[in-house]
């Protein structure tokens, strides 16, 4: 279903290019390919370990508020972000830990954020549902379903406007006008925006408005629908008519393709192709990734509204084990894989310990960063 466009055929810059440990180059040689896949595995393991800690912290009451785990869906976040660079931006959802980690966000700061501590990604003011890490182009989780879609469109529009301004040699202006923390290399000319959202979001108006908008202005946006089958406590197919997310996107002029989101390598391959098209100027592309939410809607939802066998079957399809198996086939030793997972678990456990030990934010933080003019006394 991927729309074909002449301009998209021309090979774009190779993926990777940010922090090499995050987004390894893929250059065809078997060992590089393996290194890339190992890096993907590492991030997937890190996301899972992060969320195991996060869920435990929520259940024990150590992390206040609500945590929405993406356990089982890691292949989508990592498969997509493996094709992004630091300068690229992402928008995320209430279920955004995976997107953030895959984009290179500081996991320790994220864990502190979940615990509401000083040093958290947002200084403790956002929590799990509002994690952002602008330094790596992560423009924020969002507590409103679908709200990231128009934001991603505007981000892409800004990237293009700034490119035009630079090419008009007015770049000098940028220094003064620049206010936000920005990822390194934010001025790369072919930066794109990846916009993650769930299958529930396709029933909200901003989905339509954003698809039309991106197609109309031919914006560099990769839309990623993580279709885990549920919207909160409701099976999404029970409230969604028609042919589904991809068909709706295509109806608005955004070419779409479906992928098995539990196969990280498949996601990686398709995302690579779509990202190349977008960098090449083909306009927005849509990736419909089917997956499954292993846990409940939140860390404390027992998900009694679905058959246990269904969740068990999804666990059997584990995207991490699948990638590990592919690596084993490619000759990676079981010990190496185990070490990666152990390291991930250790990293996140230590982040959690750090979070528990971290101080609370300064009370004055409650009143800072509201606004300059008319700030609260």
């Amino acid at each position, binding site marked *: 279903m991927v729309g074909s466009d002449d301009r998209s055929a021309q090979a774009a810059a190779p993926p990777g290019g940010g922090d090499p440990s995050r987004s390894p180059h893929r250059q065809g040689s078997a060992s590089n390919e393996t290194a890339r896949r190992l890096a993907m595995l590492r991030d997937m393991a890190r996301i899972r370990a992060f969320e195991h800690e996060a869920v435990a912290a929520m259940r024990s009451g150590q992390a*206040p*508020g*609500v945590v929405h785990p993406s356990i089982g869906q890691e292949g989508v976040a990592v498969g997509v972000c493996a094709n992004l660079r630091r300068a690229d931006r992402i928008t995320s959802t209430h279920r955004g830990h995976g997107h953030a980690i895959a984009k290179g966000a500081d996991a320790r700061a994220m864990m502190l*954020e979940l615990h*509401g*501590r000083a040093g*958290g990604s*947002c200084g*403790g*003011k*956002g*929590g799990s*549902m*509002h994690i952002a890490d602008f330094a790596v182009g992560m423009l924020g989780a*969002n*507590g*409103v*379903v*679908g709200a990231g879609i128009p934001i991603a469109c505007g981000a892409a529009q800004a990237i293009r406007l700034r490119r035009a301004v630079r090419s008009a040699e007015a770049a000098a202006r940028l220094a003064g006008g620049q206010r936000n923390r920005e990822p390194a290399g934010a001025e790369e000319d072919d930066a794109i925006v990846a916009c993650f959202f769930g299958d*529930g*979001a396709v*029933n*909200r*108006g901003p989905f339509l408005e954003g698809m039309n908008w991106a197609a109309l202005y031919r914006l560099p946006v990769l839309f990623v629908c993580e279709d885990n089958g549920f*919207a*909160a*406590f*409701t099976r999404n197919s*029970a*409230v*969604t008519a028609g042919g589904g997310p991809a068909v709706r996107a295509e109806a608005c002029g955004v070419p779409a393709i479906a992928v098995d989101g539990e196969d990280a390598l498949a996601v990686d391959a398709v995302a690579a192709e779509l990202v190349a098209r977008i960098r090449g100027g083909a306009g927005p592309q849509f990736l419909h990734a089917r997956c499954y939410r292993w846990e409940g809607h939140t860390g404390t939802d027992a998900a009694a*509204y679905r058959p246990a066998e269904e969740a068990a079957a999804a666990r059997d399809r584990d995207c991490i084990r699948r990638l590990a198996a592919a690596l084993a086939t490619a000759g990676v030793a079981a010990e190496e894989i185990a070490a990666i997972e152990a390291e991930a678990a250790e990293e996140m456990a230590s982040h959690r310990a750090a979070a528990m030990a971290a101080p*609370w*934010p300064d*009370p004055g*933080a*409650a*009143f800072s960063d*509201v606004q300059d003019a*008319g700030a*609260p*006394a």
Partner: protein
Amino acid sequence: MTRMSFAEAARTALAEEMRRDPLVWALGEDLAQGGIFGQYKGLAEEFGPDRIVSTPISESAIMGAGLGAALCGTRPVIEMRIADFTLCAMDELVSQIAKVRYMFGGQGRAALVVRMPQGMWRNSAAQHSQCLEAWLTHIPGLVVAAPGTPADAAGLLKAAIRSDDPVVLMEPKNLWTAEGEVPEAVEPVALGVARQVAQGDAATVVTWSACVPVVEQGARDSGVACDVFDLRSLWPWDEAAVIASARRTGRLLVVHEAVTVSGFGAEVVARVVEALGPGGLRAVERLGAPRAPVPFSPPLEDAMRMTPARVVQAIRRVASARH
């Protein structure tokens, strides 16, 4: 009287109304699963999927369809999940529901209920903690109610369902599990009538919603004998009772969870001052949240929270101020 939770009282009241009138129905996300606070638990089983309608995440359609259904003679109860999400359906509420009767010269009426649980709850942060009742009191055509006890959760819901006006019912998220005495046979609570919670001559204290138990506690702790009112309805609100009390005490304190600036407390103060003249009062104060979003971290969130201790101080300030 039976002791039950806020959610249980509301659930029971809705079930009774649905049994009474087959044209009453409810629509919103996850209703078949009982709603996120359990306030719809078991109703899908009793009333079926055409009267307890689980919807897509489509706030505009939920609100707009509720209006269409009211115009064709049914009585929908529109569930917004939390008040913040009403921001996704504001046109439908404010430019359609509130205006349709007037705009069309009385041909059609939006006899419906919009439920929007609001306020801070379990560190939900900026996008899930807003109190927007003041907004809705500003909109002609809307009735606004905000229960603060299980009994009123039931009684106001019944009144809202039976009202021919569109009634916005703002339940306090933080009180769904709170328990209280509820009559065996709940009667509708008259819209616009406050509940006097305590009596005293030292000051007039006005509050509603999640602050009701906080203010009750604070008033007790203060040791100052005040008239305390739980407004219950914000539009219409019980001006007569509050003004009569303030005329007697000469001192007015309004307490709410919402941001103070342009909160409904401003309206209460302005109205009472206009009615009595500034000379009729000796002290006036509003106690609400700072003009800042609600932060996630517990100690930061606490800075925004109304507490009995803050109420105690305010009551003492107001009761003792000299001008």
